[in-house]
């Protein structure tokens, strides 16, 4: 049973990666760029989803996003190491380290206090970076094009290669998060959102769970930042600005915390809405985004990730609870269908 579940997840991940990579050959250049950037954003938002499942929202993921982008960007531009895989590891590791330092300081705070602390830290980094003229100050600096295990493609091939790496990284991150979410530690982390007091009185440290989730989110943020630094070919302090962090929260809310795949769909949807709105409604595109988010909140309060459950419910397909399912009942309407009423 457990092996079935694991192999199903892995098979889905492999097929989805292959399919998305193949789709890349059909996409126009601008959309390759948009999709790669969306994956970068999606990775950071996936980190927020990890936090959201235990009841916390970070308004300052720009901090780790920026750390990842700057560290890998500096390594690429100053040390000349341009291999995409090495840079992703370096960016992810740098942000993970920052997460390890920051997490114990903020893990005791909750709700708006946690959110504002993370926001404050990201803005501190922004304030520091704009003063650092040796790395471009407020203008930032350019990041050289990445190489791929020694291969240095150009033009379309470079975009396609980076898109392929983004798809691969997204698949790995989503798969690992999926495993985590449906594991026992993942369920206990979810219980923190429901009732911290109970979790403590069951003998588990809520503090430790929060630190763990923040560090995971930091690592994902760093990888996302590295990917987008390489995609854009430029990093600047705006990576750490509050509006950037706000976009990550936007994506997370849009996606909800039910599905790991939905995060990337939400990110891609945001990029598309932004691109088209920017072009056709240049003065009101934020309004369009707001309306889009409102529609999702009204009709899919658990985010795009709950769409599948909603469709099944609407068309009468039972989404009956499986023993040990990690989806909270509140997230899976229709679970009670066909259930035998207990004897009173």
């Amino acid at each position, binding site marked *: 049973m457990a092996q079935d579940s694991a192999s199903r997840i892995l098979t889905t991940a492999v097929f989805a990666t292959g399919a998305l990579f193949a789709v890349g050959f059909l996409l126009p250049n601008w959309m390759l760029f948009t999709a790669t950037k969306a994956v970068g954003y999606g990775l950071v938002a996936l980190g927020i989803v990890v936090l959201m499942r235990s009841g916390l929202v970070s308004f300052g993921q720009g901090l780790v996003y920026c750390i990842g982008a700057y560290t890998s960007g500096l390594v690429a531009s100053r040390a000349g190491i341009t291999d995409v895989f090495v840079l992703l590891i370096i960016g992810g590791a740098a942000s993970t380290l920052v997460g390890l330092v920051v997490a114990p300081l903020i893990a005791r705070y909750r709700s708006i206090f946690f959110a504002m602390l993370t926001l404050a830290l990201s803005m501190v980094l922004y304030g520091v970076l704009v003063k650092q003229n040796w790395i471009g100050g407020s203008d930032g600096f350019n990041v050289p094009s990445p190489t791929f295990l020694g291969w240095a493609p150009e033009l379309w091939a470079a975009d396609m290669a980076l898109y392929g790496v983004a798809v691969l990284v997204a698949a790995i991150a989503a798969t690992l998060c999926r495993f985590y979410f449906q594991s026992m530690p993942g369920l206990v982390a979810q219980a923190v959102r429901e009732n911290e007091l109970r979790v403590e009185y069951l003998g588990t440290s809520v503090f430790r769970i929060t630190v763990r989730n923040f560090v995971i989110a930091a690592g994902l943020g760093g990888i996302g930042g590295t990917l987008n630094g390489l995609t854009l070919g430029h990093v600047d302090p705006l990576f750490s600005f509050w509006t950037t962090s706000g976009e990550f929260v936007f994506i997370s809310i849009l996606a909800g915390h039910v599905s790991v795949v939905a995060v990337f769909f939400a990110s891609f949807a945001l990029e598309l809405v932004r691109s088209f709105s920017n072009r056709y409604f240049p003065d009101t595109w934020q309004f369009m985004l707001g309306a889009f988010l409102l529609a999702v909140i009204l009709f899919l309060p658990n985010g795009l990730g709950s769409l599948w459950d909603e469709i099944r419910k609407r068309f009468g397909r039972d989404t009956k609870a499986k023993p040990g399912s990690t989806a909270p009942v509140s997230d899976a309407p229709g679970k*009670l269908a066909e259930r035998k009423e*207990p004897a009173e």
Partner: protein
Amino acid sequence: MTDTPVLQARGLNKSFGAVVAAADINVDVPTGERLSLIGANGAGKTTFVNLVTGYLKPDTGDILLEGRSIARRNPRQITQMGVCRSFQIPQLCEGMTPRQNLLVAVGASRPTFSFFRPVGAEGAGEQVTELLDRFGIAAYADRPVSELPGGVRKLLDIAMALVRHPKVLLLDEPTSGVSSEEKFGLMDTVMAAVSNEPVTVLFVEHDMDIVTRYADRILAFYAGEIIADDKPDEVLSDVRVQRYVTGTAK
């Protein structure tokens, strides 16, 4: 079998400003005993439970679990050492089902669970099913907790506390909020569920019929002090208990 009581309170004092919630509390609780804590509201019963479980720290005095001090430890550490509790208002994960709640309890009790194996693996599913059966709540296993009757919520809360196979189980008013017809059934279920465990049970209770039927011994509290500590018949016939606790003094 050791002669050391599983739980000992030594000179416990706790005050909240001018209000004395615990005044020189000294108690020895032998292994396996069913001990009931009685007293009017504000007498110090829940304070005693909160001191034992680490929610409150005593001003002075000590609490020993099998001879080891637990008075300065936090609730999580005390739980890990083997003192678990249920609550007057059941502390459940409302957005989950009873099965998921118990899986959470199992997951929290074993830090060795893999991140790469699904919920219910490594024997957790079987353990949960056994607990659901033992507490007679299997029929409710996959219903939302928010829809459960009060008695089932109480049983689930207690079942979660029992997952760790604690040495001491503290039940804070296990029958409060439960209809009078259901109270004895609930207590029968709880006592049957713990009968095969080497657990000492302390329960706070206001219903003297429940106390008489299920307790081996009673501690009667008044104004933070223990005014009687004996077998049920002895305690309930004590004049001070009748005056300050049961209100049956002539």
